């Protein structure tokens, strides 16, 4: 699922794990809609890592617990879903974002991204120490960059770049117009580029 990037920045392979199910998606969805445990588990294992990563970067208080809530809603409502794999992914992240907003309102505090994501990473039993160190560095850089973005810009960029939602889907998830989402995306990318050019060491 990892994407290979060469020294010239040319990407190859499956990007961001956005198509974990492949051509078997239709059969998988049909089985999940009949309540087959194997299909439900495959959907969970295919999408939950991206969801918990998104929630962690967004500064959720308990990303794993919130991910469980998200997939309870997803699997209970899978019977009424109809669409393609990207649409399923977009639907899942829309639910995740809604739960995140609910949590923010519930705890009535600004999303706290500082200091959390790296320290709260779960330990992997039998993992590669070098690989884990690189992951921690990556998450720390993402965390530092997102902390410098405005909340709305960060939401749009993460939903666009990490969850892979379209402008239309982001507008629906955030309750904004497509024009507003495009404007937020443009300003967020500009700010991000400014940050990267000012401090290239951050990445």
């Amino acid at each position, binding site marked *: *699922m*990892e*994407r290979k990037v060469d020294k*010239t*920045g040319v*990407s*190859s*392979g*499956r*990007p*961001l*794990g*956005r198509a974990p199910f492949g051509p078997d998606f239709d059969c998988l969805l049909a089985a999940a*809609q*009949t*309540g*087959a*445990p194997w299909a*439900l588990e495959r959907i*969970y*294992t295919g999408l*939950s*890592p991206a969801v918990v*990563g*998104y929630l*962690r*970067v967004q500064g959720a208080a308990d990303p*794993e*617990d919130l*991910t*469980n809530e998200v997939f*309870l809603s997803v*699997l*209970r*409502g899978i*019977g*009424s879903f109809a669409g393609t794999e990207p649409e399923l992914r977009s639907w899942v992240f829309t639910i995740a974002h809604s739960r995140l907003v609910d949590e923010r309102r519930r705890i009535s505090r600004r999303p706290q991204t500082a200091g959390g994501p790296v320290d709260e*990473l*779960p330990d992997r039993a039998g993992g590669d120490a070098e690989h884990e160190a*690189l*992951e921690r560095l*990556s*998450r720390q*850089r*993402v965390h530092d960059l997102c902390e410098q973005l405005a909340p709305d810009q960060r939401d749009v960029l*993460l939903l*666009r*770049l990490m969850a*892979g939602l379209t402008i239309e889907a982001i507008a629906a998830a955030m309750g904004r117009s497509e024009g507003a989402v*495009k404007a937020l995306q*443009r*300003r967020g*990318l*500009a700010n*991000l*580029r*400014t940050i*990267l*050019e000012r401090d290239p060491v951050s*990445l």
Partner: protein
Amino acid sequence: MDEMPVPPLDDRALDALLTGARAGQSGFDWLVPFVEDLEQSAAAPAPVVRPVLATLLAQGFSTEKGDLPATAASNVTGPAPQAAGLPKWRKKRMLISELLAGLATKLAGLGMAAKAGLGLTLAAASTTAAGAVGVLPAPAQHAVATVVDATTPFSFPDTANAKSSFGATVSNDATGASDGVPGVDGKAVSDAAKNKHTADAPTSTVDAGTPATGVGANTGATGLDRANQTPAAGHVPTSVPAATGNSGTPGSPASNGLGTAATTPAAGHVPTSVPPVTSGGSTSASNGLGTAATTPAAGHVPTSVPARP
């Protein structure tokens, strides 16, 4: 935070970057390292499954058993109607409540004039019904009966009229206009008056020929008959002694009262004859000695009266 000028964002180019196109083709080379870091963040293992979700993942759900996912899809037309429904008493109470609520709503929607008219109509209907039964006070009953008699083919009882005509009835009875026999029939008048003023018989009319019933409504022709209708009937003599000379014309042979006295329990002590009455001064024995000599104490009567000094 200053914004650097950004080339016009081609959303399709960004999509190309996100879907794995070459960075050189998308125009977002500078963004590739950030996207790769995001990918690393999303490459974490699946989070720990909580018990509720674990149960769902392990057991799945059955669409045939009506579990929640299937129920949500099949419930689009709303819940099915209840098979049992409400109990009868509840339905009846709800029906009454709905009727009352509907009437209240309609009444509230009426104008002031309509409300006043409805109130007058209800009051008139109530008064008419009470008048038909005859439970109104005498003046009101008279008014209702007069109106009904004048406007409808029906007639209501009018106790005021009956009482006011009571004197005329007695007068007619006394003059003989009613029955051809002069003189007041005391029994009939008494019975009629009693019936007129008895609270539990307000609708009876003055009709001496219609005997009333109940205690006090005596109808016998004689005192004995009426006495026998009382609780003391067992102590009433069975006959009235025939009329004798004690109440007859003075001067008759049996007018001295001895005959009547002989029928009393003290008959044994009654003298058998009454001395004849003589007019004073018309006989020689006008001094009273003659009369005294005829009494049982004649032996003690002096023979002469001493001369006056």
